[in-house]
């Protein structure tokens, strides 16, 4: 039983999500390989070889892999799939894009966003926005799985000494081409990896008003997030969205400001260790999941909170 983990990286650095996925793989079996596919991604491949518990790193470097186009990455994975009993990828936007394509090419019914491993063929995954947990068993010869990274604590980044093997990529599919990318620039921690997240909702009233959350996020070294309502209203960019169809986060501390707590938002943050809610509506559903709540005007409470944190 050998397990392939598809690494998440930006060529230069390996994303933590890779180590969360290796953690899930370790619960399935012992022989773990990591695939690092990209263009000039040698540094990420070297980092992958250091991960605790990884036996082999497959490093595939080619221009047509540079933008992680699903057509090209899936062809690469399928070319080596027969060596594996399980293929795992983190449920990031890249993982969600490419993994079902791999599964279909292998005639496998993918299991999406597992949060627990019961046995090598049985897994737990949330359904209905996390309002139910399903335990499912796969009958497929090769099990193709995406891993919800909040479900597994990352293994150590060092301590391993995996063998590095070079893998030749199939040619460009010619079906799709990368045009451009608009990356949201931020000095803050990444939303899905941050220890503390400060999120704003519709109650913020405008994009401009999100500025009052910045000193709070600065003080806490927090990532900033938002509810779907705030993103739909155009207050903040789409990649800030926390929820069923946005990002799933589980920080040590989640501060929900002006967020009512719609089911689909709770689905994205209710596994946080400690939840704080600040809302003027004391009936808001967010208070039903919050450990600490303040009923009040966020425009007064947030600056006070920043002052208190300075003390």
């Amino acid at each position, binding site marked *: 039983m050998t397990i392939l983990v598809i690494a998440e990286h930006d060529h230069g650095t390996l994303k933590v999500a890779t180590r969360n996925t290796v953690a899930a793989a370790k619960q399935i079996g012992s022989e773990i390989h990591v695939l690092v596919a990209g263009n000039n991604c040698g540094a990420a491949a070297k980092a992958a070889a250091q991960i605790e518990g990884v036996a082999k790193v497959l490093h595939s470097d080619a221009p047509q892999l540079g933008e992680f186009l699903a057509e090209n990455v899936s062809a690469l994975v399928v070319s080596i799939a027969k060596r594996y009993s399980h293929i795992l990828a983190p449920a990031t936007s890249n993982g969600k894009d490419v993994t079902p*394509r791999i599964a279909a090419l292998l005639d496998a019914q993918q299991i999406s966003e597992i949060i627990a491993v019961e046995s090598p063929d049985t897994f737990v995954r949330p359904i209905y926005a996390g309002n139910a947990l399903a335990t499912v068993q796969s009958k497929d010869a090769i099990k193709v799985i995406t891993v919800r990274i909040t479900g597994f604590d990352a293994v150590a980044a060092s301590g391993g000494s995996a063998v590095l093997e070079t893998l030749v990529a199939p040619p460009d599919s010619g079906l799709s081409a990368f045009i451009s990318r608009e990356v949201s620039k931020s000095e803050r921690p990444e939303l899905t990896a941050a220890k503390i997240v400060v999120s704003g909702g519709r109650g913020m009233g405008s994009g401009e008003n999100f500025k009052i959350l910045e000193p709070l996020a600065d003080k806490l070294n927090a990532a900033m997030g938002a509810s779907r309502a705030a993103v739909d209203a155009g207050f903040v960019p789409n990649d800030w969205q926390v929820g069923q169809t946005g990002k799933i986060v589980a920080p040590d501390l989640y501060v929900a400001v002006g967020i009512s707590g719609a089911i689909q938002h709770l689905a994205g943050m209710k596994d946080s260790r400690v939840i704080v809610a600040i809302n003027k509506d004391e009936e808001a559903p967010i208070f039903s999941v919050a450990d600490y709540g303040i009923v009040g005007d966020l425009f007064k409470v947030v600056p006070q909170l920043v002052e208190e944190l300075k003390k």
Partner: protein
Amino acid sequence: MKALVSIKRVIDYNVKVRVKSDGTGVETANVKMSMNPFDEIAVEEAMRLKEAGVVTEVLVVSCGVAACQETLRTALAIGADRAILVESDVALQPLAVAKLLKAVCQKENPQLVILGKQAIDDDSNQTGQMLAALLNWPQATFASKVQVADGKAQVTREVDGGLETVSLKLPAIITTDLRLNEPRYVTLPNIMKAKKKPLENLKPDALGVDVAPRVSILRVVDPPKRKAGVKVPDAKALVEKLRNEAKVI
């Protein structure tokens, strides 16, 4: 060019789902069912492409039980030209749906297939990508903007770090994200008109597809409940709790 849109009948997004006491699934008896919200966005996008003169015909397809006809009628009321129900009483999993849609695509030859990025019941997020794989067509998932011209679709995608734009050779698969468009309301005259639009019924056998589930659901349970916490009077009290009780800052 023809656009095909795949739609799924799901428990309405406003319904609070309840896990059945025997652990076999969630309660669906006497529960309001609707079109999956992402699929509504997919139908709307196809209609906008038709109104822009890019698409000439919008075909909607649903795979599932006979009652999916109602969902197809809703899509016809939004403006789709005709509908196909691939009827099956088997609980269809994404790979089976992708195989059924592949068979329909081979009969109908659409140049563009638009699907919701995920269904809000099983939250799988697979069918579009799987269909693209089976047809060997390009894919653009999580679309927030679509432009079609000169045999290509240029699609802006919502990704973890922001936005990404790709160009696909047609025929191609697109899956919709929330901010692609805002679906129109269905009007009564259009509901009446939709009743007269053609709705064809196909069976998986006739399409040569084995739809037997590949993953068995062993049990479905409630998630662990979070206890509601306490209200604190002010910022000072909150900081004190976070420092000394929760010890998170």
